[in-house]
């Protein structure tokens, strides 16, 4: 019962009371969706001979697509995917402060009243997962609303000609040219985000939360720079899946990686928190 109360308290204080923060994904998705619709219109105007059925999947890709593999050459400077990075950075930032802030002051009363460190930690895990899913859910709902408003079909299709004109892609795998995208591809970036946010939360027990956030940002940029399965955020960039990019990575492995990182983060965080001194840094 106390655990349920802990969770409800976290949902209330970590999400409901911070509802303003959840406006960020709405604003971001609105701006990018509008821009994408504009690009679609330009595309339709100039590419009249190309089959052009656009859908929810196209706008979703504009936000979540990420970038193709970066090949460093003299005339190809590295440009990180601004929209994709902003999306994941805001999400990581959103779940950064609350757990550490909630551990001190009033939070220490909550931990003691809960009677168990495990309850507090698992409540924070559930909160973290929920906040991340709500964040990405709001982006998707916003895209759906955009589709409804401008009359684009809400189906998981992908118009590769359109994507090609937006991203100027090379090495395209044209399998999905006229096909629908599996639901798994829509889910994986969210799962990676959940796993990495849990990882970030666990890191805050080992270092200052600002540093753990910087590590998250570094991992995002490193993944954008380097197409490598070890760089976990690659699995959050659908443009790098073999289904889209023939030299890319198999997205199926991303589920295993997300699960492994998520579970390990939760277990390590739990073991660490059992022995963690709940104390202000300046008291040390």
């Amino acid at each position, binding site marked *: 019962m*106390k655990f349920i*109360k*802990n969770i409800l*308290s976290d949902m209330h*204080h970590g999400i409901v*009371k911070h509802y303003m923060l959840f406006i960020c994904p709405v604003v971001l998705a609105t701006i990018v969706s509008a821009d994408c619709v504009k690009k679609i219109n330009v595309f339709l105007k100039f590419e009249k001979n190309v089959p052009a059925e656009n859908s929810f999947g196209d706008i979703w890709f504009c936000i979540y697509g990420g970038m193709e593999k970066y090949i460093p050459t003299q005339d190809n400077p590295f440009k990180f995917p601004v929209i994709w990075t902003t999306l994941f950075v805001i999400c990581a930032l959103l779940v950064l402060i609350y757990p550490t802030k909630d551990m*001190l*002051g*009033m939070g*220490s*009363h*909550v*931990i*003691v*009243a*809960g*009677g*168990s*460190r495990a309850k507090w930690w698992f409540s924070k895990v559930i909160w973290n997962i929920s906040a991340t899913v709500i964040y990405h859910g709001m982006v998707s709902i916003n895209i759906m609303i955009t589709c409804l408003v401008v009359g684009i079909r809400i189906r998981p299709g992908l118009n590769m000609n359109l994507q090609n004109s937006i991203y100027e892609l090379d090495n395209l795998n044209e399998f999905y040219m006229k096909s629908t995208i599996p639901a798994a591809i829509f889910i994986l970036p969210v799962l990676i985000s959940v796993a990495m946010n849990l990882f970030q939360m666990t890191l805050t027990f080992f270092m200052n939360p600002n540093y753990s956030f910087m590590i998250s940002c570094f991992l995002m940029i490193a993944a954008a720079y380097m197409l490598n399965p070890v760089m976990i955020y690659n699995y959050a960039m659908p443009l790098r899946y073999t289904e889209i990019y023939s030299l890319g990575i198999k997205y199926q492995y991303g589920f295993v990686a997300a699960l492994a990182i998520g579970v390990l983060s939760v277990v390590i965080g739990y073991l660490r928190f059992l*022995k963690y*001194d*709940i*104390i202000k840094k300046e*008291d*040390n």
Partner: protein
Amino acid sequence: MVTIEVKNFTKIIRKNTVLENISICMKSGTIYGFQGINGSGKTMLMRSIIGLIHGTSGSILINEKELGKEIEFPDSIGFLLENPAFLDGYSGMENLKMLTRLQGNLSEENLKKLLERVGLAGAGKKKYKKYSLGMKQRLGIAAAVMENPDILILDEPMNALDTEGIECVKQLIAEQKERGALVILSCHDTDILIHLSDEIFKLENGHIKEHIIAGGDDE
């Protein structure tokens, strides 16, 4: 009846010994005063008894159960650690309600009485962020005593309080002792500490320098 037994308790943080070989026995219905300058280890010892800090060596037993091994936190404890911190966007009443929901669920009527008791009768609906330092302190004290805990830990409860507030807290502490609580108190004002405490532990650089029993001999 509750007992706290601190046995050879040592805490080292980043090679800095903040508590060294502390051994104390405490029991219900008694007020224990912790005295010492800033950094002497009072707050660390209090945090350790609450269960927020784990010792490097030694043990703390609450009713003969080892803290951190057999139990994570004492069953019934209320505390105020230095500066109280509540949720800014909530009123004093809402903050107490939130805490009591997790602990025992006191009625709104009881919470109102408690707020009156600590001198916050008219400020229950005011947002916490608009509270003065003294009001925050009073709310912190209310939160500590509201569930009538078996163990009450008050770290500098007189901070930022006016004369009337100090009298109110002194009376509250005496009442807690009367009903059988084990009270641990720290206070920079030696006169108040001597007046309230049955036993005083003087801490210096993480050691217990002196143990004074009211009306008795020094140890």
